[in-house]
């Protein structure tokens, strides 16, 4: 009874190892997840990044074209950044793979696929030397290069022929890049979580200007004429002069503006995190209308053919696992609600308009990735598609 040999020593050591193992098992970057990233392509095809792969779904044929999972990844890689599709090339990044059980290094890759409408897309190139942290931002494809923002604060330019870095040095911001860069006339505009918007020379990556917008910019920028619009965590949308970065006007929301604003016909539309929708004049920022429409909105606002679409993540009073999403359609002129549609899971992903339909991607904690395709001419007509991303074998 009093011989404290085995009873004390080994259980304590085993307990320590178990706890440390549990802790470390959550420690690698691959364990983190996110909501799906979705992009509309040509010929009625959408590309969705979710979990271990990228899936292409032909909505006209109502079938899955292909799923791409890097062969060497053994399902350990994760993809959540919306892919970029342009001129037959699909470019996307992953969330990184741990270098091994006793390695602190993380390998993050950018991939370019071609022959997208075939059954088997071809990997044109991949590049694994540019980042140590996830690719969360959708890349930007230009004529000869791809601009990629990384979560370890860098902006890099890769040749879209072979993926080799083009700039002498990558551009480094003060925090992660989550938002899709945009380009105009040889200048790249990049949003950052460091509360700045940057203008970079597309040829060299050198900074032209930076503009502090008072809060992080987590989603893409929107451009119209000589203005750039940025939704910021400082509860405002900022209109910046494209040439100098100077603030032209700001429009106040009631909470942080997480999703990107949308521009159409001289009006900028945006929704804050608390679900208040706003329409302001694109040149002056004067308020046209505002309306509470939902709770928790992180997806970008979408506007098409006189209708503003808001994808909401659900009621904050309900436990996250039980929340339902809502897709709401508002009149762009008045903000009046035209229709709304309940979804079985929260909507975090920005919807895409493809031909005569709007597509939302959703997932909950236990369910699979699901696409809901809603006919814009008759919102009561919709159908569901469940892509097969996981490797069943």
């Amino acid at each position, binding site marked *: *009874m*009093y011989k*404290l*040999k085995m009873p*004390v*020593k080994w259980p*304590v*050591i085993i307990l*320590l*190892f178990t*706890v*440390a*193992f*549990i*802790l*470390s098992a*959550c*420690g690698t*970057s691959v364990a*983190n*997840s*996110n*909501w799906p990233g979705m992009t509309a392509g040509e010929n009625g095809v959408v590309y969705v990044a979710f979990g271990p792969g990228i899936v292409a779904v032909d909505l006209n044929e109502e079938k899955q074209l292909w799923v791409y999972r890097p062969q060497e990844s053994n399902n350990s890689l994760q993809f*959540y950044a919306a892919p970029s599709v342009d001129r037959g090339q699909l470019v996307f990044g992953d*969330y990184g793979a*741990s270098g091994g*059980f*006793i*390695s*602190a*290094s*993380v390998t993050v890759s950018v991939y370019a696929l071609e022959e997208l409408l075939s059954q088997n897309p071809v990997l044109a190139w991949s590049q694994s030397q540019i980042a*140590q*942290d*996830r690719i*969360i931002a959708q890349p930007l494809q230009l004529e000869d290069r791809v601009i990629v923002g990384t*979560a*370890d*604060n860098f902006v890099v330019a890769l040749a879209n022929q072979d993926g080799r870095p083009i700039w002498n040095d990558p551009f480094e911001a*003060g*925090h*992660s890049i*989550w938002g899709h860069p945009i380009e105009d006339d040889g200048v790249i505009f990049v949003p950052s*979580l*460091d509360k700045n918007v940057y203008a970079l020379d597309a040829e060299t990556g050198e900074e032209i200007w930076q503009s502090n917008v*008072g*809060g*992080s910019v*987590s989603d893409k920028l929107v451009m119209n004429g000589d203005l750039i619009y940025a939704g910021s*965590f*400082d509860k405002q949308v900022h209109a910046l002069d494209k040439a100098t970065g100077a603030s032209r006007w700001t429009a106040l929301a009631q*909470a*942080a503006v*997480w999703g990107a604003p949308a521009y159409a016909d001289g009006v900028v539309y945006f929704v804050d*995190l608390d679900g208040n929708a706003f329409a302001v004049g694109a040149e002056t920022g004067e308020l046209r209308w505002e309306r509470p429409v939902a709770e928790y909105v*992180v997806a970008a606002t979408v506007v098409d053919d006189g209708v503003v679409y808001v994808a909401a*993540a659900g009621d*904050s009073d309900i436990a*996250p696992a039980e929340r339902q999403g809502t897709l709401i359609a508002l009149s762009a002129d008045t903000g009046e609600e035209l229709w709304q549609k309940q979804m079985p899971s929260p909507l*975090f992903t920005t919807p895409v308009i493809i031909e005569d339909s709007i597509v939302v991607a959703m997932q909950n904690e236990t369910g699979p990735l699901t696409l809901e395709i809603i006919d814009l001419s008759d919102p009561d007509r919709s159908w569901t598609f469940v892509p097969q991303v996981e490797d069943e074998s």
Partner: protein
Amino acid sequence: MWDALVIDPMTNALLFLYNILPGLAGNSFVVAIALFTILIRLITLPLNLRQQKSSMKMQEMQPQVQAIQKKYKDNPQKMQEEFKKIGYNPTESLTGCLPLLIQFPILIGLYRAIITLLGSTPQALFELTDRIYPFIDELVNVSEALPIPNKFLWLNLAQPDPFYVLPVLVFGTMFISQKLLTPSTKKEDGDKKKKKQDDNPMAGMTQSMQYTMPLMFGFFSLSFPSGLSIYFILSNVIGIGQGYLTRSSMAKEKAAQEAGEEIPKTTGIPAEAKVQPATSGADGRSSYKQPAKKKTSKRKRRSAKR
């Protein structure tokens, strides 16, 4: 439940500290982690001190305990009585692990709090906004404070240290901290040491923990976020200071006790096994001497024979 009781309070406390503290190398989150570590250490201080003292006391008593075990191996009741006489409680050696066990929820909670606060993915950042208490939201301008800067020196606080500096520091500081918690022993040859460990499992356990713990935490720091490794290092450094002070104070107490008191109890155990005073070296560290026979009083020898 776990989230509401452990992770959310920690997350909010860290966020509040982050917002009120000045930055270090451009990052006040590291300062917040440092202050949080000190607070956690202060909260667990009584428990840690008790564990440290209890551990040292148990180590000192081992020769007596072994002698009693040997003598009364066929009479557990008598053995228990003798243990009571010398003030030895076997369950106390188990409660010595209590501070360690209490630290686990803190560790796991802090791990999740750091990961959550650094919000390294949009989903993580979104989930963070769900966890913030309304009064913290009012005190801190959350929407402008988030996301927390992830850079500190060469580190990305949400990622492991790519240059392995932090894992080495975690190992080093934890080793020293453990060393201070373990009573020093003389160098012995392998067989003798093994026999001693077999006879004295407490010492064996302490010895193995001295190496196992630092190796284990150093090893797992390879994949921990740097922010958590910084917590480990700071916590160990405070533990080193605390261990050093406890040892010094115990050595002083011992010296005062020995100077002012005669050994009170007789147990029927050979005196050689009973007395094992701690002596304090120049560095304040204790060592344990085997008592010399000639120093045993006649009175004690007589009572031992009886």
